[in-house]
């Protein structure tokens, strides 16, 4: 078996606000293999986002070790972390975090702008278009985020996360702001990506969203309290069909 892409060894993160120490992540030891699709769950304030930020090299652990792809993250400079985020990681946030007055296409091109060496502008454009096609937004290239629905915005964010061909996609409550149907679409997209070999770690509050993943990690008070494979895994296609049926029934039942 190859070495895990993520290796956490008693990783901790303490926020020091004034005199009080907040132990957002106390001690998490966790291995995630390539090709896994992991849901991190837990109540509000249990440290999920904090852990995700550490995994995404946006934040550093205050204790313990984190190896990403075999590299000890704590030994890297700010500059090296930026390069790592650019080449190996893709982020999807609950609030999308798109550049608001910039088109879908330009938003997706953004990671390539910081890629070294720079690609030819034409191939940048081409790749961005392919990524948008992959998330089903080929017809919205020149729309700005405020001209798009929440689900469409999240797809742009996913296209942006994919465009540099990352090994690991990190999503913090990607469906948190979306309705049921759109959430199913997004999860379907993640399942496709995962099938194509990308490792995905996502945070969610909802059990039915988590059940689209292959593995569920539950946190409480900064610790992992449960780590199990998903028992009744949902598949987006089936769920979509079921939802369609339910809606049809509802409209038949309703009085004319």
């Amino acid at each position, binding site marked *: 078996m190859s070495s895990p892409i993520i290796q956490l060894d008693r990783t901790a993160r303490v926020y020091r606000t004034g005199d009080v120490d907040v132990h957002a992540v106390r001690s998490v030891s966790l291995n995630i293999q390539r090709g896994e699709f992991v849901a991190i769950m837990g109540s509000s304030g249990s440290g999920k986002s904090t852990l995700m*930020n550490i995994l995404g090299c*946006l934040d550093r652990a205050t204790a313990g070790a984190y190896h990403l792809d075999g590299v000890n993250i704590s030994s890297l400079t700010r500059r090296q972390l930026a*390069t790592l985020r*650019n080449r190996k990681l893709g982020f999807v946030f609950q609030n999308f*975090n798109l550049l608001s007055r910039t088109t879908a296409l330009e938003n997706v091109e*953004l990671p390539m702008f*910081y890629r*070294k060496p720079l690609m030819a502008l034409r191939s940048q454009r081409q790749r961005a278009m392919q990524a948008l096609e992959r998330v089903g937004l080929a017809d919205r290239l020149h729309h700005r985020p405020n001209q798009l629905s929440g689900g469409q915005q999240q797809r742009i964010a996913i296209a942006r996360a994919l465009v*540099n061909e990352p090994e690991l996609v990190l999503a913090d409550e990607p469906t948190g702001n979306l309705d049921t149907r759109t959430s199913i679409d997004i999860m379907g997209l993640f399942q496709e990506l995962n099938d194509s070999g990308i490792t995905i770690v996502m945070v969610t509050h909802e059990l039915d969203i988590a059940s689209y993943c292959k593995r569920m990690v539950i946190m409480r008070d900064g610790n992992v309290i449960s780590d199990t494979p998903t028992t009744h895994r949902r598949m987006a296609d089936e769920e979509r069909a079921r939802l369609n049926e339910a809606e049809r029934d509802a409209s038949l039942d309703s009085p004319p």
Partner: protein
Amino acid sequence: MIPLLQALVLRPLLTAMIALRALRRNALRSILTALGIIIGVASVVAMVAVGNGARDKIQGEVAALGQNILLVFPGSKRSAGVNAGMGTAASITLQDTEAVRREVRDIAGLSPEVWTSAQAIASGRNWSTTISGVDPEYISVRDWPVARGAMFTERDVRSAAKVAVIGSKTANELFGAINPIGQTVRINNIPFIITGQLSSKGAGLGGDNQDDRLVLPYTTVMKRLTGEKTVKLLNIKITSADRMETAQAQIRALLRQRHRTPAADPDDFNILNQKEIAEKVASITGIITLMLGAIASMSLLVGGIGIMNIMLVSVTERTREIGIRMAVGAQGSAILLQFLIEAVTLSLLGGTLGVLGGMGTAHAIGKVANFQPVVTADSVILAFSVSCAIGIFFGFYPARKASQLDPIDALRYE
């Protein structure tokens, strides 16, 4: 080679594109921010142009005196650096004039000059003008040829003839389109025949219009109009520039000797050397230009502070954007470059508009003033490089602040 090209050319170019986009999104604010620089650069360019124009005009006037000219004024005493004013005492006689002509070597031409002002009447028109009394050599000494007709002659001088050569403006005022040659002009009720008309020369050193005058034999003016016995000015043309100093020394020695000035006393006359005048004028106008430029530079400084202020606001406003860029892999240096280029773009935009505004202002000043401001290439280049430097200097702090943001804090910023 390729990475170097990318680092030095392509990436800054792309970054400049982003910066331009950001500036265009806030077009009004960008213009208002640049306004400080616009005004600063415009005033520097305009002020320096005004200074240069004034200098050129005065230098032109000095040159218009004629080549290799010495001017000898009577009476002024340069004691303790205080100039009592030229021509305040009458001390140069016609005998002095003849002695200079006879005894000083290297004189190419010499003309005494006297003047007064009077009403000139011709063909029913009445015009107040300057009456100059000179020698026929005057026109060659001052490089001032007659445009039509002829200068009066030596004989006219000897006989104090009632003849006159008319300046172009005076001719226009008195005769309009009529050819003044052969016409009569009356001064103090004495009729003078006009023999010639001087070519046009424009404003003189004192700002008076040199073309507004009647030029008569000096003897005529002294005997028939003023009754004066001394001259107010000696115009002396020296054969070549390198003889100027010795000639000046000779004239001085001669006049002191003739005036019996004791060795310890200062001169009772004053010799002005054209070169000296030019130098003096250049140094004065240089100081004026410098002062105008310095005052204008203050507004450039204020403009720079305006840029810094807006860039700081912009960095705060766009904290989220910075966070997003960092999350997808932007290094601090890329963020620094982006904001720095934005600041420099703003200041260069201001510089460009400012140069145009300054040229416009200079042009407008030229319309109302009696000289033409001169916008020089180096003042434009200077204004550009200064505004670029201001962009870098005042943009650096905000840009650095942006580049040092923590990605997480920036992403969370509301």
